[in-house]
């Protein structure tokens, strides 16, 4: 787990949250900007999962590995589910749907870092 990756995820998740809220306020459905943001977020999460997976396979596992893996996999699923759910929503609340999903990622990634550092390694 690298702090730079965690910060990058947080920034992208934060921007995506604001974009989602912006489209709700502008009475818009979600658009290309949101899809691009969610794609970037998912990409970063995949990189993070691979980095963490390689470290765990190399014996550098966090103390509470099952919980860590739960958050890691859960975080991968949320942007995908958020986009799918938001795209079928035709009202202005589509953006808020995506904003909630992105905000959850922003919180989860710090919880992941916390779990990782509890390894004492």
């Amino acid at each position: 787990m690298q702090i730079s990756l965690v910060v990058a995820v947080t920034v992208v998740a934060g921007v995506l949250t604001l974009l989602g809220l912006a489209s709700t306020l502008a009475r818009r459905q979600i658009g290309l900007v949101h899809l691009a943001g969610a794609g970037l977020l998912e990409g970063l999460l995949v990189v993070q999962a691979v980095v963490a997976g390689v470290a765990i396979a190399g014996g550098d596992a966090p103390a509470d590995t099952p919980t860590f893996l739960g958050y890691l996999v859960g975080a991968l699923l949320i942007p995908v589910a958020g986009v799918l759910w938001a795209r079928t929503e035709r009202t202005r609340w589509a953006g808020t749907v995506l904003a909630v999903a992105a905000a959850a990622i922003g919180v989860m990634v710090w919880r992941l870092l916390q779990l990782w550092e509890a390894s004492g390694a």
Partner: protein
Amino acid sequence: MRDRSALGPAAESSDGGSGGPVRVLVVLYALFALAAGARAGVQLSTRFAEAPVAYLLSALAAVVYVVATVGLVRGGRGGRRTALAAILVELVGVLVVGTLSLADPAAFPDETVWSGYGRGYGYVPLLLPVLGLLLLRRGTAGRTS
């Protein structure tokens, strides 16, 4: 206004039903179903003997969130009634578990989603049922009038 069009096509208006704000609620409930379910799964499978009561409560919370999510997604009269029942159980659960966890911390050696009124989750577990009840009431009122 180029950036506005990048924000997406114009929205359709939400007139009650299971769309609109209720869909945001669905996302929140789905997230907590995932969080509570994963937490209960890990706790029950790896260290059930340490705190069986707390871990079974985690599992109960997960079930309640799942039922509420399904009820909200299904919508209609039946779905709403299911969601309403789950949300009431949730409200009672978060208040009772929250109070007990503060009054008798020894009984809750490990955190549950509802410990300390959901402080481990930014108190969202406490706000969620209130928000849910308000939205469900609003939806029902909008349909009958």
